[in-house]
């Protein structure tokens, strides 16, 4: 006899959404969380970084203000107040989530879970007390991920930090950021706007290695223009790393040359590793590779009744992907038959200045997948709204099937990119053709007009916009 219909382990975006969906459908649900509900996204990821980036956006806007006839005195950054703003947001959202869980009559269990069988879990309460055992008909593993570390750059939380620490750190005078993915690039953008000297090191030939090369170049160009020392194809000499009271020094090889960089702080942002070690799914017969719990396209592990959603299953590490997977599994368990989330048609958003957002396939990925593609590009520099917002360097690129004109992907660089990608998401889901995307009436003057222009450009290569 099970205590619950569903046991969810991990209260991040994936676990939370699964639990809510199941409870709404009438299921009895328990949610085990060893820390705070909301997971990495709410406490150490998307939300706190976005709050800090808002502070940076205001500073940047103020620098441009004199050209617009508004003179502002040099801003004084009150870091404790910025942290209060950020923490206030996190607290507000967290208490909202806790209330929503209680409202849905989801049993919240505070503590660390360990699998003792496919559908039974031992929970050691965080506050101490007796170990309890929970049983359920089905189990969802949603234990997330943690920042990857580098053997030659041991994290101490002071000189060498991960994003977990960086969200509370006052902007360092000199920072070395190791890793030019979304996290590294966002901190580079944040810190340079708040006055830090930033070196951004990426081993691969471009920033945001998963994204379109043109988009990555545009980001690198704009970060450089704001003072970030962007180094791609940069290999750190592990033996050269020195960490002492004065900070961190390292030698870096780039294009056959050696450079020495020093910083008060080094941020390690080389990706995130799925984590399930403490849960020990292997004890219940579930296969794991490192911390990863692999799943099939229906989020099933190799043990019946055990599912894994979100970062821990090794897919795209994004909050909305986790949420979509969590909802999907819960709906299946409720007897519904939703389509599995399409792993390709997932929006990706990077909140740097400029923002970089994309969905579907990049040009390179589409070609590699065997598509004959046509490309449409339209730039922000003739767009009125972009000019007014000092954002003339952005662009929209659409990737479409040559024959049918069906949309395969879309990349956007510029101020509102992370919002504008929603249009491409709807277009993709509705199987919009380039013609349809180009013909929709866009409000004037908005930057969204450029999406239509890019679709037009793909249809009429001769048209110069």
């Amino acid at each position, binding site marked *: 006899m099970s205590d619950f219909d569903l046991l969810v382990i991990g209260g991040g975006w994936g676990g939370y959404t699964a639990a809510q*969906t199941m409870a*709404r459908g009438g299921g009895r649900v328990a949610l085990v969380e060893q820390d705070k509900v909301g997971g990495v*996204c709410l406490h150490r990821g*998307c*939300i706190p970084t976005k709050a800090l980036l*808002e*502070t940076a956006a*205001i500073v940047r806007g*103020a620098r*441009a*203000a*004199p*050209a*617009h*006839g*508004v*003179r*502002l*005195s040099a*801003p004084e*950054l009150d*870091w404790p*107040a910025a*942290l209060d*703003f950020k923490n206030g947001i996190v607290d*507000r*959202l967290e208490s*909202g989530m806790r209330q*929503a869980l209680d409202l849905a009559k989801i049993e919240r269990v505070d503590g660390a879970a360990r699998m003792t069988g496919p559908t039974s879990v031992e929970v050691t309460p965080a506050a101490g007390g007796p170990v309890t055992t929970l049983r359920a008909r089905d189990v969802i593993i949603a234990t997330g991920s943690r920042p990857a570390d580098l053997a030659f750059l041991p994290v101490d939380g002071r000189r060498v930090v991960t994003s977990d620490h960086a969200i509370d750190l006052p902007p360092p005078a000199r920072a070395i950021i190791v890793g030019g993915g979304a996290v590294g690039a966002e901190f580079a953008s944040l810190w340079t706007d708040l006055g830090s000297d930033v070196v951004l090191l990426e081993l691969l030939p471009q920033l945001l290695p998963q994204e379109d090369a043109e988009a990555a170049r545009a980001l690198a160009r704009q970060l450089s223009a704001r003072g970030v020392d962007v180094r791609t194809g940069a290999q750190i000499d592990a033996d050269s790393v020195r960490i002492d009271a004065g900070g961190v020094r390292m030698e870096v090889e780039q294009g056959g040359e050696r450079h020495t960089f020093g910083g008060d702080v080094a941020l390690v942002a080389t990706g995130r590793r799925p984590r399930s070690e403490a849960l020990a799914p292997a004890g219940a017969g579930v296969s794991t590779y490192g911390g990863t719990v692999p799943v099939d396209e229906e989020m099933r592990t190799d043990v019946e009744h055990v599912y894994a959603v979100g970062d821990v299953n090794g897919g795209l590490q*994004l*909050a*909305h992907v986790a*949420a979509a997977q969590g909802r999907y599994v819960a709906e299946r368990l409720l007897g519904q038959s939703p*389509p599995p989330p399409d792993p390709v048609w997932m*929006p*990706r958003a990077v909140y740097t200045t400029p923002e970089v957002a994309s969905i579907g396939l990049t040009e390179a990925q589409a070609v590699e997948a065997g598509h004959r593609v046509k490309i449409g590009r339209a730039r922000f520099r*003739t767009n*009125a*709204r972009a*000019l*007014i917002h000092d954002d003339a360097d952005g662009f929209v690129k659409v990737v479409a099937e040559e024959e049918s004109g069906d949309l395969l992907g879309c990349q956007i660089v510029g101020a*509102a990119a*992370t*919002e504008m990608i*929603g*249009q491409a*998401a*709807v*277009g993709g*889901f509705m199987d919009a053709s380039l013609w349809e*995307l180009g*013909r929709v*009436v*866009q*409000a*004037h003057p908005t*930057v*969204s007009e450029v*999406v239509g222009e890019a679709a037009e450009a793909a249809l*009429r290569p001769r048209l110069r916009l």
Partner: protein
Amino acid sequence: MAGASGPAGKRLAVIGAGPGGYPAAFHAALRGLDVTLIDEEENPGGACTYRGCIPSKALLHAARVIAESREARAFGLDFGEPQIDLDALREWKDSVVRRLTSGLGLLRGQRNVRPIVGRAYFAGGRSLRVLRGGALDEVGFDHAIIATGSSPARPGPLALDSPRVMDSTGALELADVPARLLVVGGGYIGLEMGTVYAALGSKVTVVEMLPGLLPGVDRDLVQPLATHLAGVFDEVLLNTRVTAMADAEDGIRVRLAAAGGAESERTFDKALVAVGRRPNSGDLGLETTLVRTDARGFLETDRQRRTAEPTIFAVGDVAGEPMLAHKAMHEARVAVEAILGEPAAFEPAAIPAVVFTDPEIAWCGLTEADAPADHVEIVRYPWRASGRAITLARPEGLTKLILEKGSERVLGVGITGPNAGELIAEGTLAVEMGARASDLQLTIHAHPTLSETVMESAETFFGTSAHYIARRR
């Protein structure tokens, strides 16, 4: 004789180079027509670029920067009090206009569109007389597109000719910042320009004849803006008309009549009249053609934007409501395709409209007010449930869907909040593509974004939102 040189059947004359005229000319030239574009300005752009959407958005951007510097303390930043340099602001606004219009001038050349700077009058359904300088040229055409736009209306007592009374064009010139500004009209132009002058330091009084701001827009979308504006404007007087205006020594004396009958007299340093726009359909020599105008002065057209004179088309503000630049651009293309003999027709299911105040309001398709109540279901998603809105410290926004009962098809979308003007694009696409609520629910949106609120509205409709529960109507 200009314009008469092109091959027979291919000569197109476009009158007016605003957002209806220049896209028509450019598109037609691209499709191989021989195009003459006639306008009184040297470069294309029209009222929108020279005296409307563009300069107003530039000033609104500056207003936003000023407001943001004041709100910044919440984000841990202190800038002191902003100093406004009116000359620099004016110059920046003008530079944006110059850059866009000169860019359009360049494109005009690249597309081989022949410009004539002058004023055009029809002489029948095949030729125009164009007055430029003192000279009168004859321009023959096989087809003509009228895109002469609209002008600010100054009805009744508001017609007073005084340096203290401005229309939107005068207000955009930003001659000074009056200490006390009266804005007549609570539509989008009055609210946008009122916002600008309030940010620059004017005490602004808005007078609106109807019981609410932004007549025609759903009340729930207007509510967050009205609340915000209550703190921006000195006063907002609803149900009130201006019955008289007169110059006085110390300003402009205005008589206000409230709906109840109470009258009062007030003095302002300046007044902005923003009570609507009138189509520019007079003085075009249309009496020499079969073109017909309706009672309000709009040119009558069919779905292809053809007038009763088969060679003459009309697009944009002069061809009817809604008077929006992007509606003109869309019509322009339809008219050109119709001239080319293609089966084009103007029937977009959704034309977005945006009010660029703070917060912005945007909507498309059917509004709740226009929808027959027993045919639709309305679902609302308040932004206080949006993580992104919270990180922006802007929880007052709202996203709503107007769904057809039964089919659950999305008939309309309304959004209030920062960036609503960009967010509406996906709503427009959804309406155009015939999306159902379930499609929006299943379209995965990036987190944390405001665009999630569109998806979450659909989830709220089905009771599946993880962040918000609403009672279904």
